[in-house]
């Protein structure tokens, strides 16, 4: 009969609270794994895009040409992410402001920098998505599991108090079932914590790269703006 403790039986015969804890932890584990995989792919894409774009950007291509290529890509339905979207935000703002002759070059640069900063913010927001979830799974699920275990052990000791013949066999299944909850909590928490730390550092790296790019790009825009204005002055 109950001489073999199968894992399923353990879970099935657990008390309601412990089962609830297990369900929560299972969901936490499923979601956090989903997000880990999702983030992993997203970061890989972002990295690839960034390198590809940087290479293209510094290859000496005409910037308005680069902008047009991006527009074509956008109209195909693919989403423009990462460094390219920062570039597009800055460049668009720059060209829009540069067409207004009453704006001086400082104002044009300032405007395009602001647009790029906004785009960087948006990028960071995208990168950091779901990371909070991973962090909270990592920090809370051991406690949830521990709660299930403590509850289960409490339960089985109460049963022990009621039974006349106290043997190890009367408490052992209860404790074993309770410990499953802790195991599940740790199973959910460990990958979540590891992934959170890894992804957080990658967010850091990527947003540093973006900031650097913003500075580099605004240097270029500076040059262009002054050149543009001085040409206009000459022609006037």
């Amino acid at each position, binding site marked *: 009969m109950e001489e073999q403790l199968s894992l399923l039986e353990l879970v099935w015969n657990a008390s309601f609270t412990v089962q609830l804890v297990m369900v929560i932890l299972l969901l936490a584990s499923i979601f956090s*794994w989903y997000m880990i*995989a999702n983030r992993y792919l997203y970061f890989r894409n972002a990295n690839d895009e960034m390198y590809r774009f940087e290479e293209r950007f510094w290859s000496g291509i005409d910037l308005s040409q680069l902008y047009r290529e991006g527009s074509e890509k956008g109209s195909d339905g693919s989403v423009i992410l990462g460094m390219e979207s920062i570039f*597009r935000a800055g460049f668009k703002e720059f060209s829009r402001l540069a067409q207004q002759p009453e704006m001086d070059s400082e104002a044009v640069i300032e405007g395009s920098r602001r647009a790029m900063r906004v785009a960087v913010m948006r990028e960071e927001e995208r990168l950091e998505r779901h990371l909070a979830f991973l962090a909270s799974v990592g920090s809370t699920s051991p406690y949830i599991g521990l709660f299930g275990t403590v509850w289960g052990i409490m339960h089985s000791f109460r049963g022990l108090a009621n039974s006349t013949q106290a043997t190890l066999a009367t408490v052992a299944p209860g404790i074993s079932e309770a410990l499953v909850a802790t195991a599940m909590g740790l199973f959910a928490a460990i990958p979540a914590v590891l992934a959170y730390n890894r992804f957080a550092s990658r967010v850091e790296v990527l947003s540093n790269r973006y900031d650097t790019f913003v500075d580099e790009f605004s240097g270029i825009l500076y040059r262009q703006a002054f050149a543009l204005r001085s040409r206009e002055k000459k022609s006037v």
Partner: protein
Amino acid sequence: MTTSLYAKPVMPRIIVRPALVTLLIHGVLLYVLMTNWDASDRDIIRVKPAPNVINARLVDVSEISKPKPAPVKPRVVTVKPKPNPKPMPPKPRVAVSKLKPEKPMQKPVPKTKPPPAKPVPNQRSSRDILAAIVRDELASVDAQAQATETADEMSASFVSLIKRTVVRSWSRPPSARNGMECELSIQLIPTGEVVSVKLIRSSGNSAFDRSAINAVEKASAFPELRKLPSREFEKNFRRLTLIFKPEDLRY
């Protein structure tokens, strides 16, 4: 373009692969856990039949004291299909039957008289068969002599030893009847002590069940098991199944 940049952040659709990965990881984990979990138990259970279900019949402690060849020969010729224990006198107590070691021998002997004329090959083949049947008992007797015997034989001898010890301490209630049968699962530790006795199948008579459990508890330890190599012990003796049936009762 303007809309997408300043509206709600557009996320690229990465759904299918993470979902697959998640399912895969949890599926694999569950599978590994289930199989490993069961495997450790199933191993023990699979070998349960290996001890060959000890038939705790009340018989022949007496036979052990006899010289080996002597009991074999007479039986060979006479009662080949019926292994000797059953025809034994219905005395249930082993202790009692010890006192009359000669009886089982003498009974067969008169019958043996006619057949000795039988052809020799027949005799030999039937002797082989019988030898296999009685090996349990014999093996335990000269366990020392057969230091080189195979592991199987060794565990068989320990099985018969356990059987004898248990039978010796078994006292059956008066309500025991012939068709009764109860099955116990006992758990041993390497020092030979019994750590738990569990009733797996009841005979329907609680007194009988209790007597069986008491017998095992009274035997309580089989210190000889210490000599068993631990691998053999783990394989066959960690869990044992004992079947108790009072076959030799007349009523």
